[in-house]
């Protein structure tokens, strides 16, 4: 067989629209997922039961249900229960963010727990309160240890964005499907989508290695 990418490239404006959609969804889910994850992770770390139990329930629920099901549920089921419309972007962002929050919460909890008790002692002995100690002493050290795991999370989030095609959100895979079905060129269309993902992700991962090295300057 002959590979013919011209039929894909002639649809480059569709791919660019998909790319913008993917990046938008990724940015939203990365920020929401990782920051909500921190809040939930702190709850999981807390000794206060009214914080611990809701956080634990959240983690267990969203860790143990498929993201694709969550996205479909938010898109098709939630509008029946609640009196407002939900766009494909909202449904996808909700599903992916909540799932990422559940996974990253466990990364945060583990990272915070891995910091020696003496660091809390040192912080409290100079008069810091809980939040100051967390922000200035514990989290910066924990973050360094968590960075590889959080990088994995970010990669996952990026790739999970393709699940949004299930509710016809305009992102790369959705556009790839469209091009393939219009031009009967699935090989070229899906190969292009895969290559675009690699070309975007690989440099991002390299960037986090640079960050890891920078964070190690105190060693």
């Amino acid at each position, binding site marked *: 067989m002959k590979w013919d990418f011209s039929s894909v490239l002639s649809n480059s404006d569709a791919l660019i629209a998909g790319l913008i959609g993917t990046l938008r969804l990724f940015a939203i889910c990365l920020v929401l997922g990782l920051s909500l994850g921190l809040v939930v992770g702190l709850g999981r770390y807390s000794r206060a039961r009214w914080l611990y139990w809701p956080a634990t329930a959240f983690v267990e629920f969203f860790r143990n249900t498929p993201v694709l099901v969550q996205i479909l549920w938010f898109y098709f089921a939630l509008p029946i229960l609640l009196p407002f419309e939900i766009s494909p972007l909202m449904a996808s962002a909700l599903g992916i963010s909540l799932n990422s929050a559940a996974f990253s919460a466990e990364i945060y909890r583990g990272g915070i727990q891995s910091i020696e008790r003496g*660091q809390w*002692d*040192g*912080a409290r002995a*100079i*008069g*810091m309160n809980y939040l100051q100690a967390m922000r200035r002493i514990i989290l910066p*050290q924990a973050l*360094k240890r968590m960075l590889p795991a959080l990088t994995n999370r970010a990669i996952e989030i990026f790739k999970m964005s393709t699940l949004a095609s299930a509710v016809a959100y305009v992102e790369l895979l959705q556009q790839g499907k469209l091009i393939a079905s219009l031009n009967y060129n699935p090989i070229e269309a899906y190969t292009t989508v895969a290559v675009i993902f690699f070309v975007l992700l690989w440099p991002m991962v390299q960037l986090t290695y640079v960050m890891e090295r920078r964070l190690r300057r105190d060693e």
Partner: protein
Amino acid sequence: MSILSVRGLAKRFGANAVIRGIDLDVEKGERIAILGASGSGKSTLLRCLNFMELPDEGTVALDGRVIGQNKRYPESELIGVRQRVGMVFQQFNLFPHMTAVGNVMEGLRTVQRQSKGEARARAEKELARVGLADKAETYPAHLSGGQKQRVAIARALALDPELLLFDEPTSALDPELVGEVLNVIRSLAEEGRTMLLVTHELGFAYHVATRVVFLADGTIHEQGTPDEVLKHPRKERTQAFLARHKEFSL
């Protein structure tokens, strides 16, 4: 009036009663060495004095003011106490992600909200006092144990505490590094600072302390001047403790 006044202090961890009724008054300028076998409650006593551990029974008063009320200790009050009662730990507990000067500045910046310039000037002064002016930009990982402990002392001093608590400050150090830390503590003693020192360095306690307190089973078993307790102990357990410590001395 005593700087610090402890009455009926008790602390247990689960079923284990570590401190069982301690009364202690500390006058301004006193240097109290706290001795005792491991498990006698020395560290826990010290940690109750800046409320790193919350007492189960009894009261701790600073400058005549009892801290907390009905066994409730609001964090805002304890934060004030901890700035007035500095603590130095056996394991230093320096912040590894900050330079030496960053460690010393941290309380001034984050807790006391001083400007960067002000905090930095103060921190550099304290580092110079412990002989580490040239290590200001060094991270703890590149400091020796003795240097780390001196940075930790500078960090405590930066907040201008009225009282300093030393929890076995030289126990984690290689023997050849003990001297530099003890020298810094002695220079603080010569300035007339009030301090409580949990230590196994009997010689240092003898020369620097104004009073020696011997703990056993979470109570004060014997106390007095260094000469009384270390040279002429009256109680059997004190004698046995000192004999064990002298067993291998030259």
